[in-house]
C-alpha cells in the first residue's frame, strides 16, 4: 500500500471540492461510495489497491468534467429557457407530426437553439420548414441552408406555386396581396401537404396587442382559422394538445419572451445570426421614408432613385422590399442591443404590414397568418 498515492488522492479531491463548490463528503461519496471515506484516509486510513485504483479513475473523470455547471437561483432567462423547453418536449411527446417554422430571423434562431437544448443529446425530432416568398434577402437563404446542413436537420422549403405562376410579388401586387398569397396561403398549403398537426412559431406576446392574448398552444381548425373568442383555457403548465384529424396546433414556445430577452439570450448563448442584423455598407434607396435595400435586380427603381451605399442594419428580417433598414453604426451584437435599448420606437415599426390599423394583426391571424 503506497501512502504517497493516498495523500495525492486526498489532496486532488480537496482541490476538486474547492473548484466545484462541492463538499468533500460529496466527492468522497462519488469516489468511494462512502461520504466519510476521504476523511478517514486523511486521518491515516487505508484501503485496498483495487479500491484506490477505481477511486483514482473516478477522480480523473470528475476532474475532466470539472467544467460542470453549478446551479444558482434561476434567473429570468433561465426560467424562460426552461419554460420553452418544457413546451417543446410536450409537443414532441404528444403530437404525431410536428414541424418547426423557421423564418431565419432572430426569434427563429433562439427557438432553434432552444430545440437543440430541449432534446440534447438527441437531435430535435422534427423538420424545419421555411415558407419562402421568393423575395427574402439572399443572405437569409444562404444562412438558412448552412444552419440546417450544419445541424443535420431536415429542411422543408415551400413557395406557393400558384403565386409563382402568376408572378406575384410586392412590387407588382402590393404588400397585402403578396403577403396573403406568398406567406399566409403558402403556409397553409405547406401545412396541409405534409399533414403537420403541430407547428412551432417564434411569435412573442409582447410583439403586438392581439398576440398578448393568444395561447401558447393555439388551436386551429381544419381551415387553419384562429378563433380569438373561443380559445382553450390554458392553466399551469398543462397543455391540451388533443386535435381531431385535419385540425392543428400552432405552438409558441417564446410567448413570454420580450425583445430584450431575445437579444440578451442571443448574446449570452452566442447564437449565430444572419449578418443583416449588424450594420454594414449596403445599397439602399429611400422610398416613402423607408430605407429599402436593393437586394437583387427585380427591384424596379423609380425615376430619380439611385441606390446609395449606406451603413444600415435590419431590426427584423422578411421580404427585402417590405423590410425597412435603419441607419446604424452597430457592427457588433452589444452595439445592436445598445441601439435597440436607446431607440424610442417599437420593433415592428419597420414592418410595412402592421401599420394600417390597430386590429390588423388580429384579422390576419384569424385568417391563418402566423
Amino acid at each position, binding site marked *: 500500500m503506497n501512502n504517497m498515492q493516498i495523500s495525492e488522492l486526498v489532496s486532488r479531491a480537496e482541490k476538486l471540492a474547492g473548484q466545484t463548490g462541492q463538499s468533500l463528503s460529496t466527492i468522497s461519496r462519488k469516489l468511494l461510495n462512502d461520504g466519510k471515506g476521504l476523511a478517514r484516509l486523511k486521518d491515516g486510513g487505508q484501503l485496498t489497491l483495487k479500491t484506490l485504483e477505481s477511486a483514482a479513475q473516478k477522480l480523473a473523470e470528475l476532474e475532466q468534467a470539472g467544467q460542470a455547471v453549478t446551479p444558482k437561483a434561476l*434567473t429570468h432567462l433561465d426560467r424562460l429557457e426552461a419554460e420553452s423547453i418544457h413546451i417543446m*418536449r410536450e409537443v414532441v411527446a404528444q403530437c404525431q407530426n410536428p414541424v418547426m417554422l423557421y423564418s431565419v430571423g432572430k426569434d427563429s434562431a433562439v427557438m432553434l437553439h432552444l430545440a437543440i437544448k430541449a432534446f440534447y443529446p438527441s437531435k430535435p425530432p422534427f423538420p424545419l420548414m421555411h415558407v419562402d416568398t421568393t423575395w427574402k434577402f439572399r443572405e437569409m437563404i444562404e444562412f438558412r441552408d448552412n444552419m440546417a446542413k450544419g445541424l443535420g436537420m431536415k429542411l422543408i422549403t415551400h413557395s406557393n406555386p400558384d403565386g409563382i405562376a402568376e408572378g406575384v410579388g410586392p412590387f407588382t401586387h402590393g404588400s397585402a396581396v403578396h403577403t396573403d398569397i406568398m406567406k399566409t396561403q403558402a403556409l397553409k398549403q405547406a401545412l396541409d401537404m405534409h399533414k403537420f398537426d403541430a407547428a412551432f412559431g417564434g411569435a412573442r406576446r409582447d410583439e403586438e396587442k392581439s398576440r*398578448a392574448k393568444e395561447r401558447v398552444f393555439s388551436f386551429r381548425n381544419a381551415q387553419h382559422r384562429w378563433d380569438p373568442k373561443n380559445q382553450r383555457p*390554458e392553466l399551469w403548465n398543462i397543455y*391540451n394538445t388533443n386535435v381531431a384529424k385535419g385540425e392543428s396546433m400552432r405552438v409558441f414556445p417564446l410567448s413570454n419572451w420580450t425583445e430584450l430577452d431575445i437579444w440578451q439570450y442571443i448574446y449570452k448563448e452566442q447564437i449565430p445570426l444572419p449578418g443583416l442584423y449588424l450594420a454594414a455598407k449596403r445599397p439602399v434607396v429611400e422610398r416613402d421614408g423607408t430605407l429599402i435595400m436593393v437586394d437583387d435586380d427585380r427591384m424596379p427603381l423609380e425615376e430619380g432613385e439611385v441606390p446609395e451605399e449606406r451603413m444600415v442594419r435590419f431590426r427584423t428580417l422578411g421580404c427585402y422590399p417590405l423590410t425597412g433598414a435603419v441607419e446604424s453604426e452597430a457592427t457588433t451584437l452589444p452595439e445592436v442591443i445598445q441601439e435597440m*435599448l436607446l431607440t424610442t420606437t417599437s420593433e415592428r415599426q419597420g414592418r410595412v404590414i402592421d401599420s394600417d390599423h390597430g386590429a390588423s394583426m388580429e384579422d390576419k391571424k384569424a385568417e391563418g397568418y402566423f
Partner: protein
Amino acid sequence: MSKTDYAYETDARIAGDILGYLESHEQKSFLRFLTCGSVDDGKSTLIGRLLYDSKMIYEDQLASIESDSKKVGTQGEGLDLALLVDGLAAEREQGITIDVAYRFFSTEKRKFIVADTPGHEQYTRNMATGASTADVAIVLVDARHGVQVQTRRHSFIASLLGIRHVVLAVNKMDLLDFSQSRFNEIEEEYRGFAKDLGFGEITCIPMSALNGDNVTARGENAAWYKGQTLLEYLENVDVLSEKEGRPFRLPVQWVNRPNLDFRGFSGTVASGHIKPGEEIIVIPSGKRSRVKEIVTYGGNLDEAVPDQAITLVLEDEIDISRGDVICSTDGPAEQSDQFMTHILWMSQQEMFPGRQYLFKTGNKTVPGSITALKHTVNVNDLNEDAGKTLHLNEVGVCNISLIQPIAFDAYKDNRKTGSFIVIDRLTNETVGVGMIDFSLRRADNVVWQDLEVGKAQRASQKHQKPAALWFTGLSGSGKSTIANLVEKKLYDMGRHTYILDGDNVRHGLNKDLGFTDADRVENIRRVSETAKLMLDAGLMVCVSFISPFRSERQIARSMMEDGEFIEVHVDTPLEVAEMRDVKGLYAKARAGEIKNFTGIDSPYEEPMHAEITINTVDMSAEQAAEKIVTWLAANGYLQEG
C-alpha cells in the same frame, strides 16, 4: 402630466457601459403576478400605469394610444392608459377586458409577467387561468365602494388556485382625499374576510392608479402611509423560499433515446433538488435507482433545482415512461386512482357525473369520470350548495375515478403535481380544471413493493411464457375434460401449469358465492385475479369456467397483458350438452330444482373473437387438446421464454 414626462427613457448605463448593463440584467429575478378587480376598479389603468411609469412604452405605441384615447377613451382629452392593455378589437369597442392578457415589464431587479384578468363573474375561468401561474395576486378595490362581492370572489379564486401572496390595492384614493380612516376600514374588513382563505401574507396599499400615487412612486397625498409602494413590494416579495425544502419531483415528459447507449428521462423539476448519486424512486411503479448524471446541453449539472428543464440518466436500466414521476426516496409522491378534488368548470356544456372524460396532469393523460359531485361552492360567499351538475364558471367538490393510478401530491403541497385539466373526449375542448385535495384510497401512501424478482424473472426461470387458457362454454360442453388433457400435455412437455375450475374454486375460495348474476360476476372476478397472480408467478394456467358473460371475460382479458389471455370457446350446442347431461344438472334445471342455470334460465353470451374455437360435435376431447397445443406452438407460446 405631459407625454414627454413619461416617454421611453433609458438607463444611463446603456450608453456608457453596455456590457456591464447586459451582465447585470442577465441576473434579474422573475415574478408572475395577476391583477383582478371588477370593471371599474381601474385594473387596466393600473397595468398601463406600471408599463408607463417603468418607461416601457415606445413613441409609436404612445402615438397610437393617444389617437385611440380621443376616439374611444374614457378619460376625455387625457391619455387612457387602459388602452395599452385591452388588446382584442371587441374589448376596445366594448371597453371591457374579456380574456387574459399577458404583459411584460422589467425593472432593475426583476422581470415581471402580468396576467391581466377580467372581473365579471362570467369570466371566473379567465381569472383562474391567470391565477394558475401567478405567485402574487393584486386585488383592486375602489376605495369608494370597499370590499364588494367581486372582491370576495377574486380572493376566493386566488386562494383556490393556491396563490399565497395578496396585495389589496385600495384604488381611487384620490377621490376620497386619501382618507386614512377609510383605508383602515377597508383593510380591516378585508383581513377579517380573508383570514380563512389560507393566504400566507396580505399587504394593503392605498393608491391612485390614475395619478400614480403609491404605484411606482410614493404619493405626497398620502403622507400617513409608511408602507411599500406597489412596485417596491413587487420587486421584493419573496416567493421562492416557501417552495424550498420540498421533496424532489421530476414528472417524466419524454424519454430521450438517441441511441442504444443513452437512455435519459426528460422533464421539468416540479419541486426539490437532486444531485448525482442520490437515490430515487419512480411512482407509481415503485422501482428504485440512483441518479447517474443530470444531462443538459450546457454540460452535466452537479445539482438540479426547481423549474429547471433537465434530463436524468439513472444507474440502472429500469422501465420508466412518460407519465411517471421520479421522486426522492424520502417523501415520494403518492399514487392513487380515486381522488377528492376541487373542479372549476370551464365549458358552456355542463358537467355530467359518470361521463367519461380525459384527465390530463402535467405529464399524463388518463380516462376517468367524475363519480360524484359532493357539493358546489358559491364563488361569491363560499357557501356550500347541493347540486347535480356544474355549469360554466362553477366550482364543485368532486370525487373522480381514473382507470389507472397516477402519481400526485395534494395541490396545496405542490401546484405542479396536484393539478389537472378535464378534456371532453368528443370535442377535445378543455372543459374543466381541477386541484387534488386527497386520495380516496386508504392505501394511498403505500409505495408498491419493488420486487427484485419479477414476473419476467419467474417465467424465465421456468423457461416459459406465462399464459391463461380461458375455457368458456355451457355446462357439460367438455371444458374441464379438454382442459385437463391440455394440462397433461403441457406437463409432459416440462411446463409449469395449474388448472382452475369450478370444482377446486367453488369449494374453497368462492364457497360463499351462489349462482345469481351478481355472484357469477364476483366468481369470475376472483378467478381472474387468481389467474393473474399465477401468470405473475410465471405459470401457464388453464381456467375452466362457464363464464357466461362477455363483459366479465373482457374484464379478465383486460387485466392481463396483451397476448396472455387466450380465450378457448368450447362450442357445444345446448341440445348436445343437455343430451349428454353428465352430471344430471340439465334435468334438474328443467325440473325447476336448480335456478339460474346457464342455457336454461340464465343467458350464455358466446365469444365474438375467441382465439380458439373447439367444436365438440366434430372432434374428440383428445383431438381438441391436440388442436389447442398445436395452436400454442404455432403462436409462439411454447418457445423457451
